């Protein structure tokens, strides 16, 4: 369970961003999570409720966008989304690939602020 420390980092990032904008109120923080980020969406959602308490972004919601899992196929020279971490093979030719182009994302992408 490292979602709480991840949630605390999100709170810090949002707080710093709010400060940088003159202390605007943050209504929501948008994050992007890849299926290979090592972070579980549900666990992060509950951890965020704890992490935001008493912080400058205590009123904010966490909005999680799930990033697609995309692998690169060396045979076809294409980058294609695959349905899950159990299907790491090219949808065209079936060649297995460990070359993950997207899927490890763990980032704050945007904030809804009130001015």
């Amino acid at each position: 369970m490292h979602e709480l420390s991840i949630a605390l980092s999100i709170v810090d990032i949002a707080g710093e961003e709010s400060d940088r904008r003159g202390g605007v109120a943050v209504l929501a923080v948008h994050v992007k999570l890849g299926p290979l980020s090592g972070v579980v969406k549900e666990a992060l959602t509950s951890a965020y409720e704890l992490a935001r308490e008493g912080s400058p972004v205590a009123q904010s919601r966490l909005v999680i966008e799930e990033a697609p899992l995309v692998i690169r196929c060396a045979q076809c020279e294409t980058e294609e989304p695959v349905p899950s971490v159990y299907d790491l093979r090219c949808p065209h030719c079936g060649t297995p690939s460990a070359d993950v182009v997207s899927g490890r994302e763990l980032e704050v992408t945007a904030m809804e602020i009130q001015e």
Partner: protein
Amino acid sequence: MTSQTCSPQTRLVEVRTKILKENDVVARSLRQSFREAGVYVVSLVSSPGAGKTKFLEETLLLLRGKYRVAALVGDLATDNDARRLARAEVPVKQITTGTTCHLEAEMVRTALAGWNLRDLDLLFIENVGNLVCPASYDLGENLRLVLFSVTEGEDKPLKYPTIFNTADLAFITKTDLAEVTEFDWAAARQNIETVRPEMPILGVSAKSGQGMSDWLELIGLRLRQSREHV
């Protein structure tokens, strides 16, 4: 920086910040120091009880005559593992993480303070026994090993796909017990291949020594290759 209107009072602003950016920055700087010092760094992850410490203890004993080796060992509370590894009579330092379920790059940096990396060829970092949390944290290592034992069952890779996917090499440990546990090698290999295509797999028993010479040969090769590419 783009923005769009959500309602008369609120606005959506783009931020784009990696949540683990602080860890990534430290990990990058560690990787740079390791490269400059010519030390090859291997981290080990597994569930508790997979035999990481025993495997590392044997590895250090077998390598110490040929290479200058050292180890950092992460543990939630005790220094039992560090004391075990110290029997190999190589530099060993304990990182006690308290309630933290994984090592972070900053913990590695702090633990390395006072050590001259140029005095080392190989540095091993044993992570806290956990197959979930360590996946997200780069420690600046060159090679990440994921270990699971024949007693844990063939489906470990399917239960923890992320850590297997982020690792470079899989070890199946305690192979001396494979027969009594009726370990299904083909299924285990297939499961690893599913979540991390083309990952090299080694079967080892630190107790009987099975597979250890292949591992020593591999690590020697990787060290030489890393120095050629500086």
